[in-house]
């Protein structure tokens, strides 16, 4: 019997119309656990680097976390992975709600989708019954609308639906996959659309077995209580109406303008009223005692749900106010658009228009008001109509295609992916490392355990450290105690802090835990429910796999290194690891590059950011090393030769 997992993957080939159930090797669970880790293993094994993202051989993979469908609270993030046409690298996305747990109750840890359907289809999974069904009646339908139609058709409100909207159908790079009011962003909807898969509707009524029932249940109920009572868990932005943090510190428009004194008490009051006058309720993801999602219904508009900074991106990009976001978010949700990257693409287009690079010929009938322009552009983008066809490829690709100086306006991307619109003064080296080297593509997917800012007095710091249970090692407490200026710390400390931050994300994305109770949350106060000390026992309780801190840390390193190897095999190198040049006004190239070298070494990567044979061997990834050797990406003496290679690249 398998514990904590089903031991079965579902393989769908949309070209052939075939469905297969494949038993998995339990040893792989022990090595990769689940979620993104397991998906990375599948992608490494089955998608060679020659496969283009739009090839039928590209895979779209949904992987449940190892803690999904156990009593452990806040475990519900399903990992969605594929290769992105925007970055040509591995896309990684997470979707909250109920989909991952439902997959496991239906009997599958992973759904692997290959090929392309002839015409639009949806996948219906009801336990053992799996069918590829015609979806022509769903064509052009909104994301939650699709869910609603399918639930009615299938006569079951417990069917969980993940769907794309018009954006995904038209292969817009910013397309998301939406599941009710939860959303998988960062470039996965485009591949679902390319495969002509409108939706997956899944229902499962099978048991998930628990290895150590009483212990795990008791621990989980304690965590329920702890998370419910703690201010250090969940999305504080769901409850706190003071959002001066984003509005005064992030950049408006196409990541351009800081409005340091934007926030005021008057505004806060006004916005509070807009929110509470139109909010139905706050909702939760599966088995979580927090309610981070605000559900809004504006008169005459579609109901939508949002979390976190998602309510700010549209109005900040358009220089508007909250009511604008509230109006447009419902529409964007139905189209299935990532609310982080899309507003930036639209603000970029408006900048180009104002600079005369795009003209009325490119945008006939463009309205005068910035808000109206957003609606105008959104319609063009989701239909790939006119200029929308170019913008639908995201800022970087659009800039290249438009040319004529447009490239200079592509100033806020890394690895061709839109970054959060933040422009600051002096370089912060921890953030430099995270933005440069993160392969989950957004700072929010790597930062999170170590506090963002130092505390002023020793007394405050001591008090903080005394209650701080999450650091893997006491040295992090020392780092914090001695930390006075944000940008001053030893390189060793920067490396270790960034590594710990990243570790927790890789662990969450394998277990399926939500960042708001784990990896993302510690930076805002430290009192977070999950950490490297308590997660191992939960995994062991659910699965029976012997687990401790060291072993779990190694799973992180293995998953992380494998993701790096996958991307390296597709061409990722040191030269790509650059935060937006204007992210900080004051940079120090020499210091940054020195730190980057030290960090690579710390990670077990060579000077060009490629995992070394030693590191790969140590993690049981010898076969990865062999492949990289065969391809000439590594040589037997990899460190030295890699230095030569990078010099050679420079000469080209």
């Amino acid at each position: 019997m398998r514990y904590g997992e089903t031991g079965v993957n579902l393989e769908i080939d949309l070209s052939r119309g075939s469905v297969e159930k494949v038993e998995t090797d339990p040893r792989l669970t022990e090595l990769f656990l689940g979620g993104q880790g397991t998906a990375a293993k599948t992608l490494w094994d089955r998608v060679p680097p020659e496969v283009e993202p739009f090839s039928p051989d590209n895979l779209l993979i949904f992987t449940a976390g190892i803690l999904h469908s156990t009593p452990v609270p806040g475990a519900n993030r399903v990992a969605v992975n594929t290769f992105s046409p925007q970055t040509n690298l591995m896309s990684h996305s997470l979707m909250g709600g109920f989909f991952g747990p439902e997959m496991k109750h239906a009997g599958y840890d992973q759904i692997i989708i290959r090929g392309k359907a002839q015409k639009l289809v949806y996948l219906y999974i009801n336990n053992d019954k799996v069918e590829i069904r015609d979806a022509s009646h769903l064509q052009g339908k909104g994301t939650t609308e699709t869910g609603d139609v399918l639930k009615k058709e299938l006569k079951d409100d417990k069917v969980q639906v993940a769907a794309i909207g018009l954006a995904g159908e038209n292969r817009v790079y910013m397309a998301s996959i939406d599941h009710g009011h939860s959303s998988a962003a960062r470039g996965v909807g485009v591949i679902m659309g390319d495969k002509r898969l409108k939706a997956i509707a899944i229902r499962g009524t099978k048991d998930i077995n628990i290895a150590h029932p009483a212990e795990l249940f008791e621990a989980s109920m304690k965590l329920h209580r702890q998370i419910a009572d703690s201010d250090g868990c969940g999305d504080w932005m769901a409850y706190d109406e003071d959002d001066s943090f984003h509005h005064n510190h992030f950049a408006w428009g196409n990541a351009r303008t800081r409005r340091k004194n934007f926030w005021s008490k008057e505004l806060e009051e006004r916005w509070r009223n807009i929110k509470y006058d139109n909010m139905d309720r706050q909702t939760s993801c599966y088995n979580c005692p927090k309610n981070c999602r605000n559900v809004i219904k504006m008169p005459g508009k579609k109901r939508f749900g949002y979390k976190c900074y998602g309510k700010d991106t549209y109005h900040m990009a358009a220089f508007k106010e909250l009511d604008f976001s509230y109006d447009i978010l419902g529409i964007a949700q139905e189209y299935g658009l990532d609310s982080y990257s899309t507003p930036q693409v639209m603000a970029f287009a408006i900048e180009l228009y104002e600079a005369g690079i795009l003209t009325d010929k490119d945008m006939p009938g463009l309205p005068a008001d910035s808000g109206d322009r957003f609606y105008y552009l959104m319609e063009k983008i989701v239909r790939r109509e006119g200029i929308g066809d170019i913008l639908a490829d995201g800022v970087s690709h659009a800039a290249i295609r438009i040319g004529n100086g447009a490239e200079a306006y592509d100033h806020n991307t890394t690895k061709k992916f839109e970054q959060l619109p933040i422009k600051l003064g002096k370089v912060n080296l921890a953030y430099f490392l995270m933005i440069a080297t993160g392969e989950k593509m957004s700072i929010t997917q790597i930062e999170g355990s170590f506090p963002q800012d130092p505390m002023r007095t020793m007394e405050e710091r001591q008090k903080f450290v005394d209650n701080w249970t999450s650091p893997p090692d006491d040295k992090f407490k020392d780092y914090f105690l001695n930390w006075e200026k944000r940008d001053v710390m030893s390189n060793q400390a920067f490396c270790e802090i960034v590594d710990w931050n990243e570790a927790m994300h890789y662990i969450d994305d394998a277990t399926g835990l939500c960042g708001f109770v784990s990896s993302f949350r510690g930076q805002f106060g430290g009192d977070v429910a999950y950490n490297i000390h308590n997660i191992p026992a939960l995994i062991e309780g659910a699965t029976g796999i012997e687990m401790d801190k060291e072993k779990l840390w190694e799973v992180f390193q293995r998953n992380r290194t494998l993701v790096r190897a996958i991307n390296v095999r597709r061409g990722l190198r040191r030269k790509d690891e650059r935060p937006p040049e204007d992210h900080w006004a004051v940079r120090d190239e020499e210091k940054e590059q020195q730190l980057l070298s030290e960090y690579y070494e710390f990670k077990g990567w060579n000077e060009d950011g490629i995992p070394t044979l030693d590191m790969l061997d140590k993690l049981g990834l010898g076969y990865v090393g062999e492949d990289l050797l065969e391809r000439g990406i590594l040589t037997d003496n990899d460190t030295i030769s890699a230095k030569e290679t990078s010099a050679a690249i420079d000469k080209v």
Partner: protein
Amino acid sequence: MKAGLKKKIVKEIKVDISKCTGCRSCEMACSAFHAVPKYSSLNPSKARIRVYMDEIRDIYVPIRAGGYTQAECNGRNLYIINGKEYSECAFCPASCPSRDYFKEPSSGLPLKCDMCEDEPPLSEPMCVEACKFDALTYVEREETVAMEGTPLTEKQVELKAAYESLVKTHGRKKLMDVFSQLSKR
């Protein structure tokens, strides 16, 4: 206390649907508690509580399983509460042939809430403990009820059930008519 009256503890779970966040922790906990052995498996479809959810219409209704019913209702009511439409089924606790709710998924046997009766008793039912939003709260109320006189024998209980089911299918009036006709023969 007056003769013929006795005290009885009435256990109640109060449901405040406006507080429900749709987390389904109640389903999780109920299914774990009723697994055999306890907590050994998870399966919300085996829970004796079910959160009817409709995100699009903002409807969240936790319902506890009430027991088996032979036939579905003839007519259904629609309720409008705060401008939202709820069908009567959304609130109905029955394990009924018209739907798959409250049936053991593999055997189809009806599921019924047992208030988590346990030895030693829980301080509150599992679903309530798992609900951190006070959508479910537990109340024990003392009620004074009329004594039921001499308890019925097993045979009488059986006959009573048969009688009640006949009443349900044919209606009391019709049944009485038939009885009186038959006894006249």
